[in-house]
Each structure stands twice: as C-alpha cells, then as structure tokens.
C-alpha cells in the first residue's frame, strides 16, 4: 500500500504492446485535471511515456542511479578467494590467487566486501541508469531509464518509485514493464490498484492469465481494460468472468486510434475515449480506496 493521501495506480499487462503506455498516459492526463498527478514510467528498458507529451520540458536535473560495486585494492589482497566464494552472481573470479571482478553482473549486495578478511575490497558507485522529471502543462512525469547493456532494471525501478513517492503527488499512474518477472513485480509492488490492459487475442489472454496471478499473488486489487476492442475474436470478457476479475473499461479499435498511437499523439479530440478514460480512472481509484476488484 502507498502512503495515506496518495493513490498509486499501476498499469500493467503481461503481454507487451497491448496499450499500457497509451492507457497510462491518458489516465494521467485525466487525473491531472483534478489533482496533482505524476505519470511514473517504470518501463525502464523501453521508456516511452514521455513521448506522449511533445511539449514537455525537463523539470530539474536528471538523477543518476547507481549501485556500489567492489574494486580491488591489490596491495592488500592476499588472493584467498573468499570474495569469489561469497558472490552468488558470478561477478568475481579467483583463479590461482588472481581476483577478477566483472562489475556489470554485480548486484551491489556487498557480500564480497563482508567476506574479505584483508579489507582489500572498496566500493565505488557504478551508474546503471537515471531518473528524469518532466512537466507537461501541470502533469508531472518521472521517467526511469536503464543504461543500455545493463541488467539491473529493478534498481532503476526502485529509484524511480522512491523519487515519485517523495514528490507528494496525490495520484501516481505507473507505466509498468511487460512480463511477470522481477521488473513487473517491482513495478506493481506498493501500488493500490493494478489496471491490466489486454487486447482480444489469444496471446494476450495467455499473458493476462499470468498477470492476474501476479497481481493476486501480491495481494493488489486489479481490473481489466479491454483495449483494441473488436480487433480480434478472443474472448477477454469471458476470461475475466471465469477469473472473477472485473472489466473496468473498453476502448474500441479504430484505425485512426492506431495511427495516433503510432505517432504517440494523445486522443485529445476523441470524445468517446475521454469519457471512457474518466470512467476507468474513477473505477480504478474506487478499487484502490475500497480494496475492491480482483483479490
């Protein structure tokens, strides 16, 4: 649960490309009309939410996200290899008394430093990504971005969540990464409600099933938005009924909506959509408050 006075809604999906970012951006636009709102981009491997706000300007400096990685002080190293034995990530090799550190696979846990009897390891920060803030006509946007070639997405996600919490925004809309593994888990952790965006395809139903299990396992209430409704024949609503999860909105498929989505242009002139988005936001906020929906 988030702090009192703040509502955190996570937009997730399981399958990629169902419309998470589009739905999150529109929920944030709708939310910002009534209260201080922050759109938090936690899809740190592929951050695209800010792309919806062409006029957004940076507010404040980008903040580096780093982990502490070990550096060998060779003068003190006895070559005992206890550091390599302590590392469970294969980041340290000890061959013939020679220690080699691969900081790229280090998680920064500090186990090696604790294990070294000669105090021959010191710790230095290594950048794994950054968080940046933007302002789009009063809507605050916070973006987490993992460095290319890095594997520590969860560190960047946690840093972005922390910075978002410090902002004091009354409403946070999180744009989560696809999948149901550690990045998605970290992204929904601490949210009050999860909006699961699905599309009517067999692929989406399969992956929605996993996302429902993730939300249920984390004890976060959830509801489903059927995006691209009418695009395919797969029965998302039937699936939701069987799973006991509410459908909290439908966004009909239209070619011109797909075209706006491709250009990352908000559906601002689409009256039918804005009513639907307002209704989804109200249901999600209500679900967050009452702890309702999927449990």
């Amino acid at each position, binding site marked *: 649960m988030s702090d009192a006075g703040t509502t955190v809604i996570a937009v997730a999906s399981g399958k990629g490309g169902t419309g998470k970012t589009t739905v999150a951006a529109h929920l944030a636009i709708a939310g910002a009309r009534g209260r201080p709102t922050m759109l938090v981009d936690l899809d740190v491997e592929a951050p*695209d939410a800010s792309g919806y706000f062409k006029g957004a300007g940076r507010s404040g400096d980008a903040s580096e996200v780093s982990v502490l990685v070990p550096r060998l002080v060779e003068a003190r190293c006895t070559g005992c290899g206890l550091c390599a034995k302590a590392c469970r990530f294969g980041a340290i090799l000890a061959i013939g008394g020679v220690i080699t550190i691969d900081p790229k696979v280090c998680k920064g846990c500090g186990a090696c430093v604790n294990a070294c009897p000669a105090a021959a390891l010191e710790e230095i920060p290594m950048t794994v990504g950054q968080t940046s803030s933007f302002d789009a006509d009063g809507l605050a946007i916070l973006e987490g971005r993992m460095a290319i070639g890095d594997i520590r997405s969860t560190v960047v996600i946690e840093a972005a969540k922390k910075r978002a919490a410090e902002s004091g925004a009354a409403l946070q809309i999180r744009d989560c990464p696809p999948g149901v593994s550690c990045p998605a888990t*970290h992204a929904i952790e601490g949210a009050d409600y999860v909006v699961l965006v699905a599309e009517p395809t067999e692929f989406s139903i399969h992956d929605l099933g996993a996302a429902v299990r993730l939300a249920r396992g*984390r004890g976060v209430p959830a509801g489903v938005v059927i995006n691209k409704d009418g695009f395919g024949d797969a029965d998302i609503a039937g699936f939701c009924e069987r799973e006991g999860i509410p459908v909290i909105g439908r966004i009909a498929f239209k070619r011109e909506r797909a075209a706006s989505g491709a250009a990352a242009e908000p559906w601002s002139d689409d009256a039918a959509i804005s009513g639907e988005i307002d209704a989804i936001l109200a249901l999600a906020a209500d679900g967050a408050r009452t702890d309702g929906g999927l449990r």
Partner: protein
Amino acid sequence: MITVSVASGKGGAGKTSLSAAIAERLGAACVFADCDVDAANGAIALGAAGTKSEPYFAGPGFEIDPAACTSCGACQAACRFGAIERTNGSFRVAPELCERCGACLSRCPAKAIRSYEKQAGELLVSDSRLGMRIVHAELEPGEDTSGKLVALVRRRAAELAGDDAVIVVDAPPGIGCPVIASITGCDLVVVVVEASASGVRDAARLVELVGSMRRRAMAIVNKSGLNQAMDDAARTMLKEAGIPVAGEIPFDPALRSVEESNRTWASLDCKAATRIRSALGAVDGAIGALKEKR
C-alpha cells in the same frame, strides 16, 4: 548449428508472429526456442502438442526461522535491497524483493537464516503441428531469474538441434537481462521495428545493445503505413545504424488473429501476404548465407 534471435525492444512489435513464420519456413529442420519465458506465446503460434514438462528451480531463496531469530536486526542492516521486513518485532524475508545474494545469511549471529529451493517454473518441450520441436518455459508469475531460465531454454534447444539445424529464438521485449541472454552468441538478430514513435525508439536502444554485443543484424519494419513520418523514422534509424532491411510489413488487421486460425504469417492470404513472404525470403537468404560460411 545456426541461431537466429528475433527481438524488438518494444513489446507487441510482432516478434512471436515473425519468429513463428521464420520457423514454419525452416520446417522440421529447426528448433523453436521461446525465450519470452514470462509471456510465452510461441506454443500457441506453432500449435504445440505432446508437451513434456520438467520443473525449473531458480536457485536458493532465504527464510528466517522465527524460533531461532533473536530479532537483533543484523540481517536487515546487511540487506541492501530492503528485502528484510520487520513486523511486530519479528523479521521476515520478502521474496519478491530478495535478490538471493545471501548477505543476510552470513551476517546472522544466531544462524536463524536458512536457504531453500522452490520450484520457480517449468521447462517445456513440445512437438509442433508444423514439424519442428518447441522448447519453451513458463516462469511462475512474480519469480525472478528469467535470464537464467532463458539460458536453460537455449541450452535445451541446442541439445535437440542437429549440427545443420537452425535455432529460432523468440526473445522477450526490453533490452535487459533476459534479452541479453536471448542474443548472446547468436549468429543473426532479426530486429523487428514497429513503425511507431515508441517502436523506433525502443528498437534503437536494442540496436545499440546488439552492436555492443557485436552481433550481425537485419531488420523487418512492421505495422508500416499508419503514419508516414514513423515509417521514415524507422528507415532512417536503421540506415544510420547500418542495418539492412529485409522488408516492410504494412499494418493489416487481418494479421491480428493468425494464432486463432492455426496458421503463421508464412501461409496467409491477405493484403500484406506478398510483403511478408518477401521479407521472410530475405531472412531465409541471410540464414542460407550463414550456413554456407560454415
């Protein structure tokens, strides 16, 4: 053995549809490795049957024995991931935050922390109605170590593949750990670029990763024709990166529900079919060239 990895950066760009179509054209001579282990749809695309399953263990997790715990807090101080929670004076490990580093274990003076093994998913091998073997996996939702499971899927695929076989890897979205595991050591990366603002941006990040890993790449632009500027952006990005384009596939709603009709994009009749076959032909050509070099 030749490994072709299909990746995109952005989710929903068409990786699974295209990798299944590449596999259909290769037929029984290929092994399909579905490395999108937490959203695995290759088995649906290729009509998996006769699936054999084995448990996947991710490695040790840690738990605190409340009977032995003296509530000293040394474990919480040692953990850098905030994974040790204190409620009503007693400590517990939150598995969803635990990185499995074991720092707590070595710091506990009461030896109250023990490691345990728990099944974190399944490794699956199936037959396909199209003749090839499918290696896939289902990671338990909320589990970590997807990169490790990807490596396992690829290893099993390599065991099943003959010397002259092609392994088609369907990679997950993103550019992180499981994507790197899906691309490592492959002979060709087919970069699927969705012709959209986010599709081009995410593909550009993937292209940079592929370049840093020194992998050969070619691209397929998917869902073109929705927005001219985005089509141009995709072409420009690929040209500047020096990546040859196998073809462009126009956005066509008829492509959406192939998985429901038990077919792949390789055997379709719709407006986009000719363009798809031409792109797939270029990928076949690249695979053929790789084989000849061997």
